[in-house]
Protein backbone atom coordinates (compact mmCIF):
# COMPACT_ATOMS: atom_id res chain seq x y z
CA UNK A 1 0.00 0.00 0.00
CA UNK A 2 2.78 2.38 0.95
CA UNK A 3 4.54 1.34 -2.22
CA UNK A 4 1.47 2.26 -4.29
CA UNK A 5 1.58 5.71 -2.78
CA UNK A 6 5.27 5.95 -3.55
CA UNK A 7 4.65 5.03 -7.19
CA UNK A 8 1.77 7.48 -7.41
CA UNK A 9 3.99 10.18 -5.98
CA UNK A 10 6.69 9.31 -8.51
CA UNK A 11 4.19 9.62 -11.36
CA UNK A 12 3.14 12.91 -9.94
CA UNK A 13 6.61 14.36 -9.49
CA UNK A 14 8.17 12.98 -12.64
CA UNK A 15 5.70 14.91 -14.79
CA UNK A 16 5.86 17.83 -12.45
CA UNK A 17 4.87 20.48 -15.02
CA UNK A 18 1.92 18.57 -16.32
CA UNK A 19 0.89 17.84 -12.75
CA UNK A 20 1.17 21.49 -11.81
CA UNK A 21 -0.83 22.68 -14.80
CA UNK A 22 -3.50 20.11 -14.04
CA UNK A 23 -3.71 21.21 -10.44
CA UNK A 24 -3.71 24.90 -11.29
CA UNK A 25 -6.60 24.50 -13.69
CA UNK A 26 -8.52 22.54 -11.09
CA UNK A 27 -7.77 25.25 -8.53
CA UNK A 28 -9.02 27.96 -10.88
CA UNK A 29 -12.19 26.04 -11.57
CA UNK A 30 -12.77 25.47 -7.88
CA UNK A 31 -12.07 29.09 -7.14
CA UNK A 32 -14.57 30.26 -9.72
CA UNK A 33 -17.18 27.89 -8.39
CA UNK A 34 -16.58 29.18 -4.89
CA UNK A 35 -16.81 32.78 -6.03
CA UNK A 36 -20.22 32.06 -7.46
CA UNK A 37 -21.21 30.31 -4.25
CA UNK A 38 -20.12 33.41 -2.33
CA UNK A 39 -22.08 35.65 -4.67
CA UNK A 40 -25.13 33.50 -4.21
CA UNK A 41 -24.82 33.61 -0.43
CA UNK A 42 -24.38 37.38 -0.48
CA UNK A 43 -27.39 37.94 -2.68
CA UNK A 44 -29.52 35.70 -0.51
CA UNK A 45 -28.25 37.38 2.59
CA UNK A 46 -29.05 40.87 1.33
CA UNK A 47 -32.41 39.65 0.10
CA UNK A 48 -33.19 38.38 3.57
CA UNK A 49 -32.00 41.62 4.99
CA UNK A 50 -34.34 43.67 2.83
CA UNK A 51 -37.16 41.22 3.15
CA UNK A 52 -37.01 41.57 6.92
CA UNK A 53 -37.28 45.30 6.48
CA UNK A 54 -40.51 45.03 4.56
CA UNK A 55 -43.42 45.64 6.86
CA UNK A 56 -46.97 46.72 6.26
CA UNK A 57 -48.11 50.08 7.59
CA UNK A 58 -51.84 50.11 8.02
CA UNK A 59 -53.26 53.62 8.30
CA UNK A 60 -56.60 53.51 10.01
CA UNK A 61 -59.25 56.09 9.15
CA UNK A 62 -59.24 59.16 11.43
CA UNK A 63 -62.63 58.28 12.87
CA UNK A 64 -61.34 54.97 14.21
CA UNK A 65 -60.71 55.45 17.92
CA UNK A 66 -57.69 54.39 19.91
CA UNK A 67 -59.73 51.59 21.59
CA UNK A 68 -60.93 50.29 18.24
CA UNK A 69 -57.37 50.38 16.90
CA UNK A 70 -56.05 48.34 19.82
CA UNK A 71 -58.89 45.87 19.39
CA UNK A 72 -57.99 45.45 15.72
CA UNK A 73 -54.37 45.03 16.68
CA UNK A 74 -55.23 42.21 19.12
CA UNK A 75 -57.46 40.53 16.61
CA UNK A 76 -54.87 40.66 13.83
CA UNK A 77 -52.18 39.37 16.16
CA UNK A 78 -54.09 36.09 16.25
CA UNK A 79 -52.96 35.36 12.68
CA UNK A 80 -50.12 32.89 12.48
CA UNK A 81 -48.44 34.82 9.65
CA UNK A 82 -47.94 37.94 11.72
CA UNK A 83 -44.94 38.17 13.96
CA UNK A 84 -45.82 41.34 15.78
CA UNK A 85 -47.76 44.52 15.40
CA UNK A 86 -46.54 47.88 16.54
CA UNK A 87 -49.07 50.44 17.44
CA UNK A 88 -48.42 54.09 16.63
CA UNK A 89 -50.82 56.69 17.96
CA UNK A 90 -51.92 59.64 15.83
CA UNK A 91 -49.91 61.97 18.07
CA UNK A 92 -46.75 60.01 17.47
CA UNK A 93 -47.42 60.05 13.74
CA UNK A 94 -47.84 63.77 13.78
CA UNK A 95 -44.54 64.22 15.59
CA UNK A 96 -42.83 62.08 13.01
CA UNK A 97 -44.40 64.04 10.22
CA UNK A 98 -43.27 67.32 11.72
CA UNK A 99 -39.82 66.01 12.13
CA UNK A 100 -39.62 64.86 8.56
CA UNK A 101 -40.76 68.20 7.21
CA UNK A 102 -38.91 70.41 9.65
CA UNK A 103 -37.19 72.15 6.77
CA UNK A 104 -40.42 72.94 5.06
CA UNK A 105 -41.98 75.89 6.93
CA UNK A 106 -44.84 76.12 4.49
CA UNK A 107 -45.93 72.62 5.25
CA UNK A 108 -45.57 73.15 9.01
CA UNK A 109 -47.63 76.36 8.71
CA UNK A 110 -50.45 74.59 7.02
CA UNK A 111 -50.35 71.87 9.65
CA UNK A 112 -50.78 74.49 12.33
CA UNK A 113 -53.78 75.90 10.52
CA UNK A 114 -55.63 72.67 11.21
CA UNK A 115 -57.31 72.55 14.57
CA UNK A 116 -57.43 68.79 14.88
CA UNK A 117 -54.84 66.17 14.12
CA UNK A 118 -55.89 64.99 10.65
CA UNK A 119 -54.04 61.68 11.02
CA UNK A 120 -55.45 58.36 12.17
CA UNK A 121 -53.95 55.59 14.26
CA UNK A 122 -51.33 53.42 12.59
CA UNK A 123 -50.58 49.72 12.90
CA UNK A 124 -47.19 48.49 11.68
CA UNK A 125 -47.34 44.80 10.88
CA UNK A 126 -44.17 42.73 10.88
CA UNK A 127 -44.37 39.41 9.06
CA UNK A 128 -42.92 36.08 10.03
CA UNK A 129 -42.19 35.29 6.37
CA UNK A 130 -42.15 37.59 3.42
CA UNK A 131 -43.93 34.90 1.43
CA UNK A 132 -47.07 35.52 3.47
CA UNK A 133 -47.27 39.08 2.27
CA UNK A 134 -50.26 38.57 -0.08
CA UNK A 135 -52.10 36.54 2.49
CA UNK A 136 -51.91 39.29 5.08
CA UNK A 137 -52.89 41.86 2.48
CA UNK A 138 -55.98 39.87 1.59
CA UNK A 139 -56.89 39.60 5.28
CA UNK A 140 -56.70 43.38 5.46
CA UNK A 141 -58.79 43.64 2.36
CA UNK A 142 -61.53 41.44 3.80
CA UNK A 143 -64.79 43.05 4.93
CA UNK A 144 -63.88 42.85 8.60
CA UNK A 145 -61.06 45.34 8.29
CA UNK A 146 -61.62 47.05 4.98
CA UNK A 147 -63.96 49.63 6.44
CA UNK A 148 -61.41 50.85 8.99
CA UNK A 149 -58.51 51.19 6.68
CA UNK A 150 -57.55 54.13 4.58
CA UNK A 151 -55.07 53.01 2.01
CA UNK A 152 -54.42 52.37 -1.56
CA UNK A 153 -53.73 48.66 -1.98
CA UNK A 154 -51.86 49.28 -5.22
CA UNK A 155 -48.75 50.20 -3.28
CA UNK A 156 -48.70 46.72 -1.84
CA UNK A 157 -48.84 45.02 -5.20
CA UNK A 158 -45.79 47.09 -6.27
CA UNK A 159 -43.81 45.88 -3.28
CA UNK A 160 -44.88 42.37 -4.16
CA UNK A 161 -43.45 42.79 -7.65
CA UNK A 162 -40.11 43.95 -6.28
CA UNK A 163 -39.91 40.96 -3.98
CA UNK A 164 -40.68 38.60 -6.84
CA UNK A 165 -38.01 40.20 -8.95
CA UNK A 166 -35.38 39.80 -6.25
CA UNK A 167 -36.40 36.19 -5.79
CA UNK A 168 -36.01 35.73 -9.53
CA UNK A 169 -32.46 37.09 -9.41
CA UNK A 170 -31.48 34.77 -6.60
CA UNK A 171 -33.00 31.89 -8.55
CA UNK A 172 -30.94 32.85 -11.60
CA UNK A 173 -27.73 32.97 -9.60
CA UNK A 174 -28.50 29.56 -8.20
CA UNK A 175 -29.01 28.19 -11.69
CA UNK A 176 -25.74 29.78 -12.83
CA UNK A 177 -24.06 28.08 -9.90
CA UNK A 178 -25.37 24.68 -10.96
CA UNK A 179 -24.40 25.18 -14.60
CA UNK A 180 -20.90 26.36 -13.65
CA UNK A 181 -20.39 23.37 -11.40
CA UNK A 182 -21.51 21.05 -14.20
CA UNK A 183 -19.28 22.68 -16.82
CA UNK A 184 -16.21 22.70 -14.62
CA UNK A 185 -16.97 19.18 -13.50
CA UNK A 186 -16.77 18.10 -17.12
CA UNK A 187 -13.61 20.14 -17.74
CA UNK A 188 -11.91 18.62 -14.69
CA UNK A 189 -13.03 15.19 -15.83
CA UNK A 190 -11.36 15.51 -19.24
CA UNK A 191 -8.32 17.24 -17.78
CA UNK A 192 -7.58 14.42 -15.35
CA UNK A 193 -8.45 11.88 -18.01
CA UNK A 194 -5.87 13.35 -20.33
CA UNK A 195 -3.19 13.75 -17.67
CA UNK A 196 -3.58 10.14 -16.62
CA UNK A 197 -3.54 9.05 -20.25
CA UNK A 198 -0.21 10.82 -20.73
CA UNK A 199 1.10 9.38 -17.47
CA UNK A 200 0.20 5.90 -18.70
CA UNK A 201 1.90 6.63 -21.98
CA UNK A 202 5.11 7.81 -20.33
CA UNK A 203 5.11 4.72 -18.13
CA UNK A 204 4.40 2.21 -20.86
CA UNK A 205 7.73 0.45 -20.34
CA UNK A 206 7.25 0.01 -16.62
CA UNK A 207 3.74 -1.18 -17.25
CA UNK A 208 4.89 -3.72 -19.83
CA UNK A 209 7.44 -5.07 -17.35
CA UNK A 210 4.95 -5.12 -14.52
CA UNK A 211 2.58 -7.17 -16.63
CA UNK A 212 5.36 -9.50 -17.70
CA UNK A 213 6.55 -10.21 -14.18
CA UNK A 214 3.02 -10.79 -12.96
CA UNK A 215 2.08 -7.69 -11.00
CA UNK A 216 -1.61 -7.79 -10.14
CA UNK A 217 -3.77 -5.48 -12.19
CA UNK A 218 -4.63 -3.44 -9.10
CA UNK A 219 -1.01 -2.80 -8.50
CA UNK A 220 -0.69 -1.49 -12.04
CA UNK A 221 -3.85 0.63 -11.87
CA UNK A 222 -3.51 1.75 -8.29
CA UNK A 223 -0.84 4.43 -8.76
CA UNK A 224 -2.84 6.14 -11.53
CA UNK A 225 -6.02 6.18 -9.50
CA UNK A 226 -4.12 7.48 -6.50
CA UNK A 227 -2.46 10.11 -8.67
CA UNK A 228 -5.84 11.50 -9.69
CA UNK A 229 -6.90 11.60 -6.06
CA UNK A 230 -3.74 13.53 -5.26
CA UNK A 231 -4.62 16.11 -7.92
CA UNK A 232 -8.06 16.63 -6.45
CA UNK A 233 -6.78 16.79 -2.91
CA UNK A 234 -3.96 19.25 -3.56
CA UNK A 235 -6.19 21.51 -5.64
CA UNK A 236 -8.81 21.44 -2.92
CA UNK A 237 -6.26 22.31 -0.27
CA UNK A 238 -4.78 25.15 -2.32
CA UNK A 239 -8.23 26.51 -3.00
CA UNK A 240 -8.90 26.78 0.74
CA UNK A 241 -5.61 28.56 1.23
CA UNK A 242 -6.65 31.20 -1.33
CA UNK A 243 -10.30 31.43 -0.40
CA UNK A 244 -10.20 32.14 3.31
CA UNK A 245 -7.99 35.24 3.06
CA UNK A 246 -10.35 36.49 0.35
CA UNK A 247 -13.31 35.99 2.66
CA UNK A 248 -11.51 37.92 5.35
CA UNK A 249 -10.83 40.65 2.85
CA UNK A 250 -14.44 41.17 1.77
CA UNK A 251 -15.88 40.94 5.28
CA UNK A 252 -15.49 44.67 6.15
CA UNK A 253 -17.16 45.76 2.90
CA UNK A 254 -19.96 43.35 3.57
CA UNK A 255 -20.56 44.80 7.01
CA UNK A 256 -20.88 48.25 5.51
CA UNK A 257 -23.24 47.00 2.86
CA UNK A 258 -25.59 45.21 5.25
CA UNK A 259 -25.24 47.85 7.90
CA UNK A 260 -25.72 46.44 11.36
CA UNK A 261 -26.78 43.04 10.14
CA UNK A 262 -24.90 40.34 12.01
CA UNK A 263 -23.54 38.34 9.10
CA UNK A 264 -19.95 37.16 8.96
CA UNK A 265 -19.09 35.41 5.70
CA UNK A 266 -15.87 34.06 7.16
CA UNK A 267 -17.59 32.31 10.02
CA UNK A 268 -20.41 31.30 7.71
CA UNK A 269 -17.91 29.34 5.60
CA UNK A 270 -16.14 27.99 8.67
CA UNK A 271 -19.38 26.79 10.20
CA UNK A 272 -20.56 25.26 6.96
CA UNK A 273 -17.16 23.79 6.14
CA UNK A 274 -18.39 20.26 5.60
CA UNK A 275 -21.51 21.07 3.55
CA UNK A 276 -19.57 23.41 1.26
CA UNK A 277 -15.97 22.16 1.08
CA UNK A 278 -16.46 18.58 2.21
CA UNK A 279 -18.75 17.99 -0.74
CA UNK A 280 -16.34 19.69 -3.08
CA UNK A 281 -13.60 17.30 -1.99
CA UNK A 282 -15.84 14.27 -2.29
CA UNK A 283 -17.02 15.29 -5.76
CA UNK A 284 -13.46 16.10 -6.87
CA UNK A 285 -12.21 12.71 -5.73
CA UNK A 286 -15.15 11.04 -7.36
CA UNK A 287 -14.49 12.81 -10.67
CA UNK A 288 -10.78 12.01 -10.41
CA UNK A 289 -11.24 8.33 -9.71
CA UNK A 290 -13.97 8.02 -12.31
CA UNK A 291 -12.00 9.70 -15.09
CA UNK A 292 -8.71 7.96 -14.33
CA UNK A 293 -10.53 4.66 -14.06
CA UNK A 294 -11.88 5.15 -17.56
CA UNK A 295 -8.45 6.25 -18.82
CA UNK A 296 -6.80 3.22 -17.22
CA UNK A 297 -9.50 0.96 -18.56
CA UNK A 298 -9.10 2.36 -22.03
CA UNK A 299 -5.32 2.56 -22.30
CA UNK A 300 -4.14 -0.16 -19.94
CA UNK A 301 -5.09 -3.58 -21.13
CA UNK A 302 -4.25 -5.45 -17.95
Amino acid at each position, binding site marked *: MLRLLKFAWQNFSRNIWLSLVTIIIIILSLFLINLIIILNILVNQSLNYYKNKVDISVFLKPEVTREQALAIKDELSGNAEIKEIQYESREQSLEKLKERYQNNPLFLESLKELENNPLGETLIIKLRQIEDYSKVISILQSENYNKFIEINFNIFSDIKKVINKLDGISQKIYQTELITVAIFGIIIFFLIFNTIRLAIYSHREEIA*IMRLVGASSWFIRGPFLLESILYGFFAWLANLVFLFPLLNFIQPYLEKFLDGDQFNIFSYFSQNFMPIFGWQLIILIFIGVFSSFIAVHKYLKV
Partner: protein
Amino acid sequence: MIIFQNITKAYSPASCALQKVNLRIEKGEFVSIVGQSGAGKSTLVKILIAEERPTEGKIIVGGKDITNIRHDEIPFLRRKIGVVFQDFKLLPRKTIFENTAFALEVCGYSNKKIKVIVPQVLKIVGLGDKQDRFPKQLSGGEQQRAVIARALVYQPEILVADEPTGNLDTINSREIVDILKKINLLGTTVLLLSHDREIVNHLRKRVITLDKGVVISDKQNSLYLI
Protein backbone atom coordinates in the same frame (compact mmCIF):
# COMPACT_ATOMS: atom_id res chain seq x y z
CA MET B 1 5.11 -29.69 -16.86
CA ILE B 2 4.02 -27.98 -20.10
CA ILE B 3 1.62 -29.60 -22.55
CA PHE B 4 0.50 -28.04 -25.84
CA GLN B 5 -2.43 -29.99 -27.28
CA ASN B 6 -3.39 -29.31 -30.87
CA ILE B 7 -2.63 -25.62 -30.50
CA THR B 8 -3.66 -23.52 -33.47
CA LYS B 9 -3.31 -19.76 -33.47
CA ALA B 10 -4.64 -17.57 -36.26
CA TYR B 11 -4.18 -13.80 -35.82
CA SER B 12 -6.36 -13.36 -38.90
CA PRO B 13 -8.54 -15.95 -40.64
CA ALA B 14 -6.20 -15.92 -43.64
CA SER B 15 -2.92 -16.97 -42.01
CA CYS B 16 -2.00 -19.33 -39.18
CA ALA B 17 0.93 -18.49 -36.91
CA LEU B 18 0.70 -21.96 -35.33
CA GLN B 19 -0.98 -25.09 -36.69
CA LYS B 20 -1.92 -28.10 -34.56
CA VAL B 21 1.17 -27.93 -32.38
CA ASN B 22 1.54 -30.87 -29.96
CA LEU B 23 4.37 -30.65 -27.43
CA ARG B 24 5.12 -32.12 -24.05
CA ILE B 25 7.92 -30.64 -21.97
CA GLU B 26 8.90 -32.34 -18.71
CA LYS B 27 10.03 -30.77 -15.48
CA GLY B 28 13.74 -29.93 -15.46
CA GLU B 29 14.21 -30.24 -19.23
CA PHE B 30 16.27 -27.86 -21.34
CA VAL B 31 14.44 -27.47 -24.64
CA SER B 32 15.46 -25.39 -27.64
CA ILE B 33 12.75 -24.38 -30.07
CA VAL B 34 14.21 -23.24 -33.36
CA GLY B 35 12.91 -21.92 -36.63
CA GLN B 36 13.31 -19.03 -38.99
CA SER B 37 11.90 -15.73 -38.01
CA GLY B 38 8.15 -15.75 -38.53
CA ALA B 39 7.93 -19.46 -37.77
CA GLY B 40 5.72 -18.82 -34.74
CA LYS B 41 8.19 -19.09 -31.84
CA SER B 42 7.14 -15.89 -30.09
CA THR B 43 3.51 -16.78 -30.59
CA LEU B 44 4.15 -19.98 -28.69
CA VAL B 45 5.62 -17.97 -25.79
CA LYS B 46 2.71 -15.55 -25.79
CA ILE B 47 0.27 -18.42 -25.53
CA LEU B 48 2.32 -19.93 -22.72
CA ILE B 49 2.15 -16.74 -20.61
CA ALA B 50 -1.50 -16.13 -21.58
CA GLU B 51 -0.79 -12.92 -23.44
CA GLU B 52 -2.54 -14.49 -26.41
CA ARG B 53 -5.31 -17.09 -26.37
CA PRO B 54 -5.07 -20.07 -28.75
CA THR B 55 -7.66 -20.19 -31.51
CA GLU B 56 -7.94 -23.92 -30.99
CA GLY B 57 -6.43 -26.53 -28.69
CA LYS B 58 -5.55 -26.80 -25.06
CA ILE B 59 -2.55 -25.73 -23.00
CA ILE B 60 -1.63 -27.12 -19.58
CA VAL B 61 1.08 -25.65 -17.32
CA GLY B 62 2.06 -27.39 -14.08
CA GLY B 63 -1.00 -29.61 -14.26
CA LYS B 64 -3.37 -26.67 -14.66
CA ASP B 65 -5.39 -26.00 -17.79
CA ILE B 66 -4.73 -22.36 -18.67
CA THR B 67 -6.51 -22.29 -22.04
CA ASN B 68 -9.30 -20.14 -20.63
CA ILE B 69 -7.47 -18.77 -17.60
CA ARG B 70 -9.33 -16.10 -15.66
CA HIS B 71 -7.97 -12.60 -15.94
CA ASP B 72 -7.10 -12.27 -12.28
CA GLU B 73 -5.19 -15.56 -12.32
CA ILE B 74 -2.76 -14.45 -15.04
CA PRO B 75 -0.38 -12.67 -12.61
CA PHE B 76 0.08 -15.93 -10.67
CA LEU B 77 0.82 -17.84 -13.86
CA ARG B 78 3.43 -15.26 -14.79
CA ARG B 79 5.17 -15.54 -11.45
CA LYS B 80 5.64 -19.25 -12.26
CA ILE B 81 7.17 -18.47 -15.66
CA GLY B 82 10.16 -16.15 -15.94
CA VAL B 83 10.41 -14.55 -19.40
CA VAL B 84 13.37 -12.99 -21.21
CA PHE B 85 12.83 -11.20 -24.50
CA GLN B 86 15.18 -10.11 -27.23
CA ASP B 87 14.75 -6.37 -26.57
CA PHE B 88 16.05 -6.13 -23.05
CA LYS B 89 13.54 -3.77 -21.49
CA LEU B 90 15.50 -2.61 -18.49
CA LEU B 91 14.31 0.67 -17.01
CA PRO B 92 17.05 3.17 -17.88
CA ARG B 93 16.59 5.33 -14.80
CA LYS B 94 16.94 2.49 -12.32
CA THR B 95 20.14 0.72 -11.30
CA ILE B 96 20.57 -2.99 -11.96
CA PHE B 97 19.61 -3.69 -8.35
CA GLU B 98 16.50 -1.52 -8.62
CA ASN B 99 15.54 -3.04 -11.95
CA THR B 100 15.71 -6.50 -10.47
CA ALA B 101 14.00 -5.46 -7.25
CA PHE B 102 11.21 -3.81 -9.27
CA ALA B 103 9.77 -7.21 -10.20
CA LEU B 104 9.45 -8.08 -6.52
CA GLU B 105 8.23 -4.64 -5.47
CA VAL B 106 5.27 -4.70 -7.83
CA CYS B 107 4.20 -8.05 -6.45
CA GLY B 108 4.18 -6.78 -2.90
CA TYR B 109 7.33 -8.37 -1.47
CA SER B 110 8.69 -6.76 1.67
CA ASN B 111 11.85 -4.69 1.43
CA LYS B 112 13.54 -7.12 3.77
CA LYS B 113 12.94 -10.07 1.46
CA ILE B 114 13.99 -8.01 -1.55
CA LYS B 115 17.33 -7.22 0.06
CA VAL B 116 18.00 -10.92 0.52
CA ILE B 117 16.75 -12.27 -2.83
CA VAL B 118 18.11 -9.71 -5.29
CA PRO B 119 21.84 -10.01 -4.49
CA GLN B 120 21.56 -13.81 -4.59
CA VAL B 121 20.01 -13.78 -8.04
CA LEU B 122 22.45 -11.20 -9.37
CA LYS B 123 25.27 -13.42 -8.18
CA ILE B 124 23.88 -16.38 -10.15
CA VAL B 125 24.03 -14.38 -13.39
CA GLY B 126 27.45 -12.99 -12.49
CA LEU B 127 26.49 -9.36 -11.81
CA GLY B 128 27.14 -9.43 -8.10
CA ASP B 129 29.66 -6.62 -8.29
CA LYS B 130 27.75 -4.41 -10.75
CA GLN B 131 24.39 -4.05 -9.05
CA ASP B 132 24.65 -0.28 -8.52
CA ARG B 133 25.32 0.55 -12.16
CA PHE B 134 22.78 1.87 -14.58
CA PRO B 135 21.89 -0.19 -17.69
CA LYS B 136 23.77 2.28 -19.94
CA GLN B 137 26.97 1.47 -18.07
CA LEU B 138 26.78 -2.25 -18.92
CA SER B 139 27.58 -4.23 -22.07
CA GLY B 140 24.76 -5.84 -24.06
CA GLY B 141 25.53 -9.24 -22.58
CA GLU B 142 25.52 -7.88 -19.05
CA GLN B 143 22.22 -6.12 -19.67
CA GLN B 144 20.70 -9.35 -20.90
CA ARG B 145 22.00 -11.12 -17.80
CA ALA B 146 20.26 -8.50 -15.66
CA VAL B 147 17.04 -9.25 -17.52
CA ILE B 148 17.54 -12.94 -16.77
CA ALA B 149 18.09 -12.07 -13.10
CA ARG B 150 14.82 -10.16 -13.08
CA ALA B 151 13.05 -13.17 -14.58
CA LEU B 152 14.51 -15.39 -11.84
CA VAL B 153 13.52 -13.44 -8.73
CA TYR B 154 10.37 -15.46 -8.07
CA GLN B 155 12.32 -18.69 -8.43
CA PRO B 156 10.05 -19.63 -11.31
CA GLU B 157 9.58 -23.28 -12.28
CA ILE B 158 10.01 -22.35 -15.93
CA LEU B 159 12.38 -19.88 -17.59
CA VAL B 160 11.51 -18.87 -21.16
CA ALA B 161 14.17 -17.07 -23.20
CA ASP B 162 12.87 -15.74 -26.55
CA GLU B 163 15.88 -14.84 -28.74
CA PRO B 164 17.98 -13.88 -25.69
CA THR B 165 21.06 -13.61 -27.89
CA GLY B 166 19.44 -11.80 -30.77
CA ASN B 167 21.37 -8.58 -30.24
CA LEU B 168 24.62 -10.10 -29.02
CA ASP B 169 27.90 -11.23 -30.57
CA THR B 170 29.05 -14.85 -30.39
CA ILE B 171 31.06 -14.61 -27.17
CA ASN B 172 28.33 -12.82 -25.27
CA SER B 173 25.79 -15.29 -26.68
CA ARG B 174 27.83 -18.24 -25.39
CA GLU B 175 27.89 -16.61 -21.95
CA ILE B 176 24.14 -16.25 -21.91
CA VAL B 177 23.62 -19.84 -22.94
CA ASP B 178 26.03 -20.97 -20.24
CA ILE B 179 24.01 -19.07 -17.64
CA LEU B 180 20.82 -20.69 -18.93
CA LYS B 181 22.48 -24.09 -18.57
CA LYS B 182 23.51 -23.25 -15.03
CA ILE B 183 19.98 -22.21 -14.17
CA ASN B 184 18.72 -25.47 -15.67
CA LEU B 185 21.15 -27.41 -13.49
CA LEU B 186 19.68 -25.66 -10.44
CA GLY B 187 16.36 -27.36 -11.33
CA THR B 188 14.50 -24.86 -13.52
CA THR B 189 12.86 -25.97 -16.75
CA VAL B 190 14.39 -23.85 -19.54
CA LEU B 191 12.83 -23.06 -22.91
CA LEU B 192 15.20 -21.39 -25.36
CA LEU B 193 13.69 -20.01 -28.54
CA SER B 194 16.16 -19.03 -31.22
CA HIS B 195 16.93 -18.85 -34.89
CA ASP B 196 20.68 -18.95 -34.15
CA ARG B 197 22.23 -22.16 -35.48
CA GLU B 198 25.53 -21.74 -33.56
CA ILE B 199 24.25 -21.63 -29.99
CA VAL B 200 21.75 -24.44 -30.43
CA ASN B 201 24.30 -26.79 -31.95
CA HIS B 202 26.65 -25.90 -29.10
CA LEU B 203 24.01 -27.07 -26.57
CA ARG B 204 23.33 -30.63 -27.71
CA LYS B 205 19.98 -30.85 -25.95
CA ARG B 206 16.42 -31.51 -27.11
CA VAL B 207 15.61 -29.45 -30.19
CA ILE B 208 12.15 -28.78 -31.57
CA THR B 209 11.99 -27.30 -35.05
CA LEU B 210 9.10 -25.09 -36.14
CA ASP B 211 8.44 -24.10 -39.72
CA LYS B 212 5.53 -21.89 -40.77
CA GLY B 213 3.73 -22.74 -37.57
CA VAL B 214 4.14 -26.51 -37.85
CA VAL B 215 6.41 -28.75 -35.73
CA ILE B 216 8.60 -30.52 -38.27
CA SER B 217 11.00 -32.31 -35.92
CA ASP B 218 11.52 -32.99 -32.21
CA LYS B 219 14.78 -34.79 -31.30
CA GLN B 220 16.99 -35.32 -28.26
CA ASN B 221 20.68 -34.33 -28.41
CA SER B 222 20.09 -32.80 -31.76
CA LEU B 223 21.45 -30.20 -34.11
CA TYR B 224 19.65 -27.34 -35.81
CA LEU B 225 18.54 -28.94 -39.04
CA ILE B 226 17.45 -26.26 -41.43
